[in-house]
Structures are given as structure tokens and as C-alpha cells.
């Protein structure tokens, strides 16, 4: 009697669990469908297209690994775009990580009107990309721009910025600094999550603020630094608007960012095959970089509750 009863409840919970699972899959079906239509499907399609020569008008022609071979051996612009993007990433990511942290530390002080300061710092990073870039094109105007005017006050004749192959990329980097508030606000959120008692305990032990920073603040922030690092690398590899609007890759391809190059191949020359191959290589690069960062996390990211 008892046995059959237990078996029946078991079966009943089993069918309940099955119903719950069914409901789960039903509810997430829009996303699952989207995953298929806008992520997995396109990734596979992209791989297939990358083995063809296709201009959307005439039928696609299978060319094997031609696109990839061209990319690596016969296309200097591919290497140029990779170089531009890599330099930009290597310079901007550390600057954003450190600069955002410094701003966040400053904004974590108990100062009068701190809310206003935070708003001022964060605001530029929510502005529309095109308007942001157009504004900076004006600020970087070689003759009457804000930057060169300020430089002229101290007797420096500023470069021609966006029109100079040596200065165009640094100019875009400077422009990006105005968006530093994004990283700051993420740091700030986690700075405020650090329990105060840690600092109190440290100060009882005689630690000064400098020591508290290195022994408490920085370790507690490592998960956020990690998060910002991944986000920052992925977004710098996607740089498009500033290069397209401000310089269109020039002068002399000095700001030919990788995504701008994909855009040109795909939507200006309609080389769908080649653009797909470029996109797949971008995917592999970002995947590899993310994996390296995630792997390295064990060594330097501190998670609370973890014995060290």
C-alpha cells in the first residue's frame, strides 16, 4: 500500500516536472527561435558564404579557401585593418581600465554635489555615436577647433589631427576618452558594494589609505576589472562609427578599422563571400582573446568566499 502510494507520488512529481520543463521551453521559445535565426543560423550561413564568391546578383560560386588565402597572403588592407584595430585596442583598453578606475575612486569620495559630478562624467558615454563624432570633428578642426585653440594659448601649433595620417588614430583615441564614464559607472557600482567593515578592520590594524587601496579595494574590484576588460576588448574590436564618420578610414588607411573594412567589402563592394570570411576571422579573434582573458582570470581575479 505504502509502496504503491510512494510510487504514485513519484510518478506524479515526474509528470509535474515534465510539465514544468515543457512550460519552460514554451516560454523561452521566442529567444530559442531568435538564437536559431539571428545567431546560430547566420554563423553557419556565414561560414558557408565565406567559401564562395557572391555579389548577391549572380549566383554564388564555390571557391574553397580562396577568400581566406587572399586575406592572409594577398590583401595588405586586411593586415592594415588588423594593425589599426590592434593598436587602438592595446592603447585604449588599459587607458579605459585605469582611467575609469581613477574617476570612480574620485567619484566615490564624500564630496558636496557628488551626484552632479557623476552625471557630468557619465553623460557623454550615453550620447548618440554620430552626434558625438560630429562634435569631435569640430573640436579637432585644425584651424579653429577647440583643441588647437587651447594649444595655441600655450604657443603650440596643433597638428591637423583627422587629416594627418600620423595623428588621425591618436585623435580618435582622444575622442574615445570622452566616453570614459561608462567604465567609471561600472566600477563605482562595485566600489560601493565593498563592505565598510573591511576598511574599519584595516584601519584598526594601522593600515593607511594607500595600503587599504592595494590590500582591499583593488582585490575586491578584480571581478569588475575583469568584466570591464572583456567588455572593453570586445567593444574596441567593434569600433566603426568614429572611423566611418570622422575619417572614413583615412587618411592613407591610417584609421581603417576592421569592422569598417568588413562593411566596405560587404556593403560597398558587395563581396559577400570575402566579407563573411573577414567576419569569421573577427569572431575567432574575439573568441580567442576572450578565452585568454577568462583563462587568466584564475590568477588574478579574487572572488569573495574563496580561500586564498
Amino acid at each position, binding site marked *: 500500500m505504502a509502496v504503491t502510494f510512494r510510487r504514485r507520488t513519484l510518478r506524479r512529481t515526474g509528470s509535474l516536472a515534465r510539465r514544468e520543463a515543457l512550460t*519552460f521551453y514554451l516560454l523561452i521559445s521566442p529567444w530559442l527561435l531568435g538564437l536559431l535565426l539571428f545567431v546560430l543560423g547566420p554563423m553557419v550561413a556565414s561560414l558557408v558564404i565565406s567559401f564562395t564568391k557572391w555579389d548577391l546578383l549572380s549566383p554564388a560560386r564555390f571557391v574553397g579557401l580562396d577568400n581566406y588565402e587572399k586575406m592572409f597572403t594577398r590583401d595588405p588592407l586586411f593586415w592594415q585593418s588588423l594593425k589599426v584595430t590592434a593598436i587602438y585596442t592595446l592603447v585604449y583598453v588599459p587607458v579605459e581600465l585605469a582611467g575609469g578606475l581613477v574617476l570612480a575612486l574620485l567619484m566615490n569620495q564624500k564630496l558636496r554635489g557628488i551626484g552632479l559630478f557623476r552625471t557630468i562624467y557619465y553623460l557623454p558615454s*550615453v550620447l548618440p555615436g554620430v552626434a558625438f563624432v560630429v562634435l569631435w570633428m569640430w573640436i579637432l578642426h585644425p584651424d579653429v577647433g577647440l583643441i588647437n585653440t587651447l594649444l*595655441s594659448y600655450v604657443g603650440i601649433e596643433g597638428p591637423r589631427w583627422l587629416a594627418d595620417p600620423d595623428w588621425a588614430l591618436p585623435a580618435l583615441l582622444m575622442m574615445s576618452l570622452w566616453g570614459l564614464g561608462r567604465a567609471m559607472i561600472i566600477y563605482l*557600482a562595485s566600489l560601493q558594494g565593498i563592505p565598510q567593515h573591511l576598511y574599519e578592520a584595516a584601519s584598526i590594524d594601522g593600515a593607511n589609505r594607500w595600503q587599504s587601496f592595494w590590500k582591499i579595494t583593488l582585490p575586491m574590484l578584480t571581478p569588475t576589472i575583469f568584466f570591464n576588460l572583456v567588455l572593453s576588448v570586445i567593444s574596441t574590436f567593434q569600433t566603426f562609427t568614429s572611423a566611418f564618420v570622422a575619417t572614413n578610414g583615412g587618411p592613407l588607411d591610417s584609421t581603417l578599422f576592421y569592422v569598417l573594412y568588413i562593411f566596405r567589402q560587404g556593403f560597398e563592394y558587395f563581396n559577400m563571400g570575402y566579407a563573411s570570411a573577414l567576419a569569421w576571422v573577427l569572431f575567432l579573434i574575439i573568441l580567442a582573446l576572450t578565452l585568454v582573458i577568462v583563462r587568466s582570470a584564475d590568477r588574478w581575479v579574487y572572488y569573495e568566499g574563496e580561500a586564498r
Partner: protein
Amino acid sequence: MSSATGHHAQQRAWHSQRVRQKLGRAVAYTLAVIVAIGFLLPLFWMISSSLKPDYQVLEFPPRWLPDPVRWANYPEALTYVPFARYGLNTLFIAVMTIIGHILSCTVVAYAFARLRAPGKNVLFVILLATMMLPYPVTMVPIYVGFNKLGWVNSFKPLIVPAFFGSPFFIFLLRQFFLTLPPELEDAARVDGANILQILWHVILPISKPALATVAIFSFQASWNDFLAPLIYLHDQSKYTISLGLNFFRSSYDVRWGYLMAASLVTMLPVILVFFLAQKQFIRGITLTGMKG
């Protein structure tokens, strides 16, 4: 005697600590002000230039304040190209996208937050992974697909994907739903409500702050988007505000006063939303930023 000097020394130490604290605060304040000026200067320059008469815009050395102030730059700039049209187009796309995101993401997020099913954890990891997938990676094949459907040069490619959810918003809402006590739903379940009724009548009314965050982020993304509209919209009458501004720049790039006026107007809705909904912005970041 010795206790008195000890007391004295202690007081002095306390005093010097206070002084140092005050000094530190003054330094921090000065620094904060200098950086703030640096952040505000571009905006000031934009506003100042947007109000200058043409002959003053390219004057050297430039003057900091326009004299006389020329308000007419605004109406003139905004009618040079049909900015009202661009604004309405963008607003339409933004509103449809918000509807799509709210409808799809709440349902998916609720399932991830509350239901148990085999394979759920794997799917959640996939969701997080796709959050990191850059748009340029899939833009070519997605374009090919929409081209096959004949949707190029329409708003559909910019709107329809929203109805299939967005990993970021699903994640954000799931984090929020997890903070709600499950007891609320138990009561409704006892009353015989099904899961969609519970979601609609119990969960959504108390989720307004999180939904507002999604709506705001979604609006901002649509309003600021450039690459996708650039790929899909070819008719000038269908341009979004960012496309319109870029078109304006490439056609009239000598008229910086007009361009600055148009840029400021383009920024205005985002600035407005930002000031009205700063709390939601910050909440979105704290919900998704860390506590994964």
C-alpha cells in the same frame, strides 16, 4: 603630568589627522572640478558654436561666446534636411523595438528565473555567451536573409529581431525577478492562476522599475544605432536621426554652426531621458554589472 602630555599629543595627532583629511578633500574637490570642466568643455563648445553667425564660426582666434546670439541657426539647420521626418522614423523604430523587447524578454526571463527544466543551465550559459557576440560578426548573413525576404530598405530588419528577445535584457530581467519573493506567486498559484496570468497580474505590476530600465536602454540603443540603419535604410525619407545627421555632415560640412545645432538636437532626447531616469540607468548597471 605625563598623562596630560599624552592627552595633548593625542589631541595634536587627532588635529593633524583632521587637517590632512580636510586637505585631501580639497585636493579631491579641485581634481573633480578640473575633470568636470574637461568633460563639459566639448558640450559648451558645441552650444556656443551652434549659436554663432556664420562669419564667426570660422573666425580665428575663435571667440568663446557667440555675439550676437543667432537662434535662427536651429530652425534653419533642422529644415535644411528633414530632421522632423528622421526623428519620427527613429521614434517609431524605438517604440516598436521597446514593445518587442518587453514582450519577449519578460516571458523568457521569467522562465529562466523560476522554472526548472533539464538543459536550463546550458541554455543560460549560451545566453550569456551570445551577449558577448558582436553584431558585425553576423551582419553579413543576416543582411543576406533580410534581402531574400525583400525587407531591405524597410524598418522591419531593425524592429523584428527585438521580438525574439535580447540576451542583455533577458539577463537583466532575470536578475530582477530573482530578487522577488516567490511567496507572492504561490498565493496566486493556489488560486488556480496559470503561469502567464501570474506573470501578468503578479509579477509585472511590481517589476515596473526593471521594465523601465529595459525600455530606457532599448530606447537609447535604437536612438543611437548607426551601423544597422546604415546597412538597411537607403531612401532618404526612411533615414533615422543618426543617418540624417551623417548625411547632413557629408553634404554641408562647411556649415559647422548648423551641424552643431543639429548634433545638439540629436543628443537632446537621450540627455532628457538620462536626466529623467538616471536611477534606472544605474539600476541596470548594478543589476547586470556584477552580481551574475
